[in-house]
C-alpha cells in the first residue's frame, strides 16, 4: 500500500502538487493581492461547495458510476429550504429536512441504477433535469433572501484565514479519505469499480454499496446547498447551475479514472485547490475570462497528457498492448 501510494504520488498527485505549489508561488510573487489573508480566506471559501461534492463524487466515480445530478440536487435542496423558510418553519428544523431531501434524491438515483441496472450516466442526466425542475416548481422565481444573519455570517466566518466552511470540508475529507483508503468498504469500492463481476464473486455487496454511495452523494449535495445558501444569503431554484461539470472536472483532474477503480482523495482535494488558486490568481491578474476558460481546459488535458507522454514515448520504442486507457 505504501508502495502503491508512492507510485501514485509519482504519477498524479505528485504532478498536481507540483503545479499547486508552483502556481501558488508564482501568484504570491507576481500577482498583487493574492497572498493576503482575506484573499486566501475567500479563495478557500469559494471552493467549499465543489470540494464537498467532489468528496462523494470521487467515491462514486471510483465505483465506476457517475452522478451528474449533484448540482440539481443542490438546487432542489435550496428550493426546499427557501420554501419551508417562507412557510415559517425554524431554520434548525429545515436543515435536517434538506439533508433528507438530498438523501431521497440520491436514493432515487441509486434505486434506478441498482434495481433496474440502468447506466448511471443516463439516470443522472434524467434526474439532472427532474430535480432542477422540481426546484422550479417549488420556489418558482422567488428568491428567498431574508435568512437568519446568525447563519449567513457563520457561513462566511473564518478563523484567521481559514473559513469555518473549509474546516467542515477538511473534517469530511478526512472521513472520506479514511473510508476510501483504509477501510474494507473502501477496498470493496475500489474492487467493484475495477471489476464488478469479480467483486460480486468475492462477496462484495455491489448493489448495496452503490446505492449508499448515491445516497451519500445526494446528502453531500444538500450539505453543499446549505453552505451555498447561507454563504450567498440567497435561496433560489437556480442555485448552483452548472456546478456538476466543475465537480467532475476537479475529480478527473485529481487523477480519478473515469472508468472506475482508480483514484485518491488527496489528489482530488489538491485538484480542487489548484483550480481555485488558478482561477483566483488569473482573475486578480485581470486575465480575461476567455483565457481563464482556456487555461482551465488546458490544465485538465495537460495534467493527464504529461504522464502519458512518457508512456507514449516508451511505447514507440517497445510496442505493448495497452489495457484501459491510462488515466
Amino acid at each position: 500500500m505504501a508502495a502503491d501510494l508512492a507510485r501514485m504520488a509519482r504519477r498524479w498527485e505528485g504532478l498536481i502538487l507540483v503545479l499547486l505549489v508552483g502556481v501558488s508561488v508564482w501568484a504570491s510573487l507576481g500577482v498583487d493581492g493574492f497572498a493576503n489573508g482575506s484573499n486566501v480566506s475567500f479563495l478557500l471559501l469559494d471552493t467549499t461547495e465543489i470540494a464537498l461534492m467532489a468528496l462523494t463524487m470521487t467515491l462514486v466515480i471510483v465505483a465506476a458510476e457517475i452522478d451528474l445530478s449533484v448540482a440539481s440536487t443542490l438546487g432542489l435542496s435550496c428550493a426546499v429550504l427557501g420554501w419551508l423558510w417562507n412557510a415559517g418553519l425554524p431554520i434548525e428544523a429545515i436543515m435536517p429536512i434538506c439533508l433528507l431531501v438530498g438523501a431521497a434524491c440520491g436514493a432515487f438515483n441509486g434505486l434506478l441504477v441498482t434495481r433496474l441496472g440502468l447506466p448511471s450516466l443516463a439516470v443522472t442526466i434524467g434526474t439532472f433535469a427532474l430535480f432542477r425542475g422540481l426546484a422550479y416548481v417549488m420556489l418558482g422565481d422567488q428568491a428567498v433572501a431574508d435568512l437568519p444573519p446568525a447563519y449567513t455570517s457563520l457561513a462566511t466566518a473564518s478563523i484567521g484565514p481559514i473559513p469555518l466552511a473549509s474546516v467542515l470540508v477538511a473534517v469530511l475529507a478526512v472521513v472520506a479519505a479514511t473510508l476510501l483508503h483504509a477501510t474494507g468498504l473502501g477496498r470493496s469500492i475500489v474492487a467493484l469499480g475495477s471489476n464488478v463481476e469479480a467483486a460480486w464473486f468475492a462477496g462484495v455487496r455491489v448493489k448495496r454499496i452503490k446505492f449508499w454511495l448515491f445516497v451519500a452523494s445526494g446528502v453531500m449535495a444538500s450539505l453543499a446547498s446549505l453552505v451555498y445558501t447561507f454563504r450567498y444569503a440567497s435561496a433560489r431554484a437556480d442555485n448552483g447551475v452548472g456546478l456538476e461539470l466543475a465537480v467532475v472536472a476537479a475529480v478527473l483532474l485529481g487523477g480519478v479514472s473515469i472508468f472506475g477503480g482508480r483514484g485518491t482523495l488527496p489528489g482530488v482535494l489538491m485538484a480542487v485547490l489548484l483550480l481555485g488558486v488558478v482561477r483566483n490568481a488569473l482573475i486578480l491578474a485581470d486575465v480575461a475570462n476567455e483565457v481563464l476558460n482556456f487555461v482551465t481546459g488546458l490544465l485538465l488535458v495537460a495534467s493527464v497528457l504529461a504522464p502519458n507522454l512518457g508512456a507514449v514515448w516508451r511505447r514507440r520504442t517497445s510496442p505493448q498492448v495497452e489495457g484501459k486507457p491510462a488515466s
Partner: protein
Amino acid sequence: GTTKSDVAQQSSASATAAASSAPAADPNAPLKQGLKIAFLPKQVNNPYFTIADKGGIEAAKEFGGEGKEVGPSDASASSQVSYINTLMQQKQDAIVISANDPNAVVPALKQAMAAGVKVVSYDSDTAPEGRHVFVNQAGAEDLGRTEVQLLAEQIGHKGKIAVLSATPNATNQNTWIDFMKDELKKPEYKDMELVKVAYGNDDDDKSFAETQGLLRSYPDLAGIISPTTVGIAAAARYLSDSPSKGKVKLTGLGTPNQLRKFVKDGTIEAFELWNPADLGYLASYAAAALASGQVTGAEGEKFKAGKLGEYTIGAKGEVLLGKPTVFNKDNIDKFNF
C-alpha cells in the same frame, strides 16, 4: 429555533437604528482624477453588455479615470461574487454591477462597500443595501406599459396576446410582465387577452420551440411581446418564415442591429430599447460622482454626467436614464448597436 418572522423583526429593528450615518455630500467637489472603475456585467461577451460597458469606459476616459470590464462567461451569481472579491482586493474605487441574483451578491458588495469601494448597479439592480446608486435604464413600469401600448396599436386593441420571456425567474422580465398585466386591466384593453407567458430560457432553440408552441396552441394569436433580446430574435426568425408573418405581431426589447432585417421585411413593426452605451456612460459618471464625494446616494442629490447632462438621484437611490427609444422602419437605420 429561528424563523422567518424572528428575522423580519430583528431586521426592521436594526434598520431603524442604523439609518442616517452617511457623511454629507459635497456637490461642488471636483471629480477625482485616476479613478479606477470596474464594470461587472451579468456576463462578459454578451453584445448588449459589451456596448454598455464600452460606453462606461469611454466616460471614464472623459473624466480622466480608468475603466475596465471583467466578469464571468456564465450568467451565475456565484461567479460574480468571485469577481467582486477580486475587485476589492485590487482596490478599485468603484464597482458598476448588473446583478445576476439581487441578493447573492449583497454580502460580497457590503464587504466591498465597507472597504471603501463605491457600488453602482445598472441594468439589473441588487437589493438596495448592496449598492449606493442604481442607474435604471428605464422605469420598469414605463417599459411594461409601453410594450403593451406598442402591441395594442399594432393589433388594433383586439385579440389574444402572449409573452415570450427569458427564464421563469429573471427578475427584470418578471417585474415588467407584472406591469404589463396591470396595464392590460385598463378598459381600453378589454378586448385583449394575455393567454400565456412562455419561457425561452434565453436559449435559441427553446425560444424557437416555444414560439412554435404558442402558434400551435393558440392559432388565433394576435401578437407576442418578448421582453428579451434572445427571445425576440428567435421569435422574429421563426415568424419571418412562417405563414403567420405579418399576421402575428411581434414587439419587445431588442437591439436595432439584431432586428434590422426583420423590421425591413415586415415581421416586426416596432420595438423598443434604451441606448445601452448611454446606460454605461451614465453609470460610469454616477460611480465617479460617488467616489469623488459629490453624491452619497441620498435622494435629491444631483450630479453631471458629461454629454447626457445633469441627473438627480431619486427615491431609493435610483437614477433614471430616460425613456426608451422606439425603433421602426423609419428610424432604425440611424442606429448602430
